[in-house]
């Protein structure tokens, strides 16, 4: 029996390209709709958040990761399991502070920008991949972790690397529903 069509390597590439190209079309459309870079960035983050809240279930179902005991473990899983699973890359992880709640993901390769040589003219503050920040933030929130996720450095903006910063925020007082006397 001949090899099933969908296993041909060209089609695998097309599948990867489909997401990257669609994302590019989305950013282009948002740039048409919004004049300010901050607005596009915010919109991408918001959409990413929506995706992240649903993606986390898919991730947990596929990966069977166990319970995490530290922010460091969680960040490692994001980099080594989640990024690998969905984007085929493994960013490296660094911890940025002694209280161990601020981390960076350094992206050596970034499939999302495969077809992007440079930011569009007049769009120097555009965080092209801001969807990723929203996805991470949304996913973490679904497992009851609040975090700020932003791009700290961006190769598209001329930096030497692309770096995503994750800052885990203090958990809210868990006794907030304590009855007052």
């Amino acid at each position, binding site marked *: 029996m001949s090899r099933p069509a969908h296993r041909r390597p060209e089609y695998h590439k097309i599948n990867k390209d489909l997401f990257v*190209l669609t994302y590019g079309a989305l950013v282009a459309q948002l740039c048409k709709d919004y004049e300010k870079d901050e607005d596009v960035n915010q919109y991408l983050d918001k959409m990413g958040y929506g995706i992240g809240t649903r993606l986390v279930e898919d991730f947990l179902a596929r990966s069977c990761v166990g319970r995490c005991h530290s922010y460091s473990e969680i960040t490692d899983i994001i980099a080594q399991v989640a990024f690998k*699973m969905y984007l085929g890359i493994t960013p490296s992880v660094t911890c940025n502070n002694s209280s161990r709640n601020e981390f960076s993901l350094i992206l050596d390769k970034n499939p999302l920008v495969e077809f992007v040589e440079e930011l569009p003219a007049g769009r120097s503050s555009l965080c092209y991949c801001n969807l990723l920040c929203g996805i991470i933030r949304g996913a973490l929130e679904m497992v009851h972790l609040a975090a700020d996720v932003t791009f700290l450095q961006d190769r598209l903006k001329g930096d030497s690397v692309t770096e995503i910063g994750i800052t885990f925020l203090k958990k809210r007082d868990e006794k907030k529903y304590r009855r007052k006397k």
Partner: protein
Amino acid sequence: MADTVLFEFLHTEMVAELWAHDPDPGPGGQKMSLSVLEGMGFRVGRALGERLPRETLAFREELDVLKFLCKDLWVAVFQKQMDSLRTNHQGTYVLQDNSFPLLLPMASGLQYLEEAPKFLAFTCGLLRGALCTLGIESVVTASVAALPICKFQVVIPKS
């Protein structure tokens, strides 16, 4: 394949956001929102068309092109073939997918029938874009009688 999941989630989010984009559409509004999605699909379809294996592009007839879309393109994008292709041999083709992946996550049957067109606009554009790369101008529309079965109608005007 995890890659498809990302596309499906992104597509769902795009439908939700780009639809809600125009809160007060007015009489032409609904069509306008769908045309944004269709336009994006067209752009992507054209780019994908350029990436398809070159040896498959030596078509003799229009029908071969449509068969190619139903088999190769559909498999590359949705991991399955189109379920049926019909034509009147005068430029109109009806492509039917009995379990269209972008409709599958929604309920099956008649629930959400009204919402279905939003989930087909991007793909209509994708087909139109791929056809464009293959040298064919077309008009592509879609209809749903009951989820997740949908029909894509491709009309190729005779020059």
